[in-house]
């Protein structure tokens, strides 16, 4: 059961949970804020649409293509 930090708040998820699922479980479901200030959420769930870009340990990743690991820092803002 990995525990991650989602926008600074701890969140424990089941093994094999994707970061996209963690966003839905522990946040507002969104991965990022667009240039025009909109919150954006995962859409295709299969690595194509690029809507789920999120910062994981300081690096931009696709939330739907990344599994949660213990100690991960996931940032969806700004």
């Amino acid at each position: 059961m990995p525990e991650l930090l989602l926008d600074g708040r701890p969140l424990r998820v089941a093994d094999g949970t994707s970061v996209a699922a963690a966003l839905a479980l522990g946040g507002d479901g969104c991965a990022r804020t667009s240039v025009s200030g909109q919150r954006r959420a995962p859409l295709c769930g299969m690595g194509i649409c690029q809507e789920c870009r999120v910062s994981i340990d300081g690096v931009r990743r696709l939330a739907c293509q990344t599994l949660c690991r213990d100690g991960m820092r996931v940032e969806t803002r700004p």
Partner: protein
Amino acid sequence: MSEGRAADVIVIGAGIVGAYCAHALARRGLDVQVLDAGLPGATAAGMGHLLVLDDNPAELALSEYSLQRWRDLAPELPEGCAYRSNGTLWLAENPEELAVAEAKHAVLSARGLACEMLGAQALRETEPELRDDLLGALKVTGDGIIYAPNTARWLLESDPARIRRQRAEVVEIDGNRVRLADGTWLAAQAVLLANGVQAGTLCPELPIVPKKGHLLITDRYPGKVRHTLVELGYVTSAHNATGPSAACNIQPRPTGQLFIGASRQFDSVDPAVEGWMLAKMLGRALHYMPGLGDLNAIRSWTGFRAASPDGLPLVGEHPQRAGVWLAVGHEGLGVTTAPGTADLLVAQLLGETSPLAPQDYSPQRFFGDTAHA
């Protein structure tokens, strides 16, 4: 079917070239009807790098003149056009390229263009993301970037009283008349063909061939790069080759995204992204900016440049079709050269003295001496 006089000038194509010409014609008090079929055009696909190129004197004159016109227009452009005068850095990796940079510096500064040589140390300080063993760079200060699709739209909306737009495909040109796909004929005093790479479908006699290019854009990483970074090998490897080629071109978008080009292929009309070509192109960019590999790319796509045999556009009256005027064949520089093209066109259409020597861009050069219709 019915036929009416649609306007003073019918412009076929609402890309950046058609849009700029329509805008310039309207400024001179002419009524313009712009027809566009909504086909995939180069304006929506390309990089929108505004740059002075000096492969030959005519290209230099046209790009230099056009850059000045973009700078003049800049205060009027809305933010959506994303114009920035961020400058180009021509990167020199070896002594030969440094010599090319210095020669270019001499040519441009002799014409009074703002530019300077940066040594290795100054280059590292200016763009720390670049590999640290480059010998230097030529900085061309007045170069810029623009978001061409929004700029074309803004130009077309600039004078609603004089510029009318219609979504329609032209299927035939007969002198100063055009036939639309629905069978309607429209007539005007002049018909301007500005339909980019599709020019040959309406005028098969024009020597225009597609040159495919790949592009890729990253997620937002503000502040990593400031200038548009172009390898000097570009001058020889990409521009003049006939086989597939790729060169480093890294452009910082105002959003913080990095826009990566550029590849060139003559042999393909298939718009699909080709992995091997994309890899070759990214390899060039990575070679200059090693940290690029850690960034997230979000999209890649392709576009087609309309290439003429000598790389220069065809601007002026069609030598064999009375009433038809041309503004086509802008290759990889049509966003840059749209303002100069428009001024050349308007001057010739109105019988005025042109700000640039029209014969250098005259379609006549591909039709021989006796081709007058």
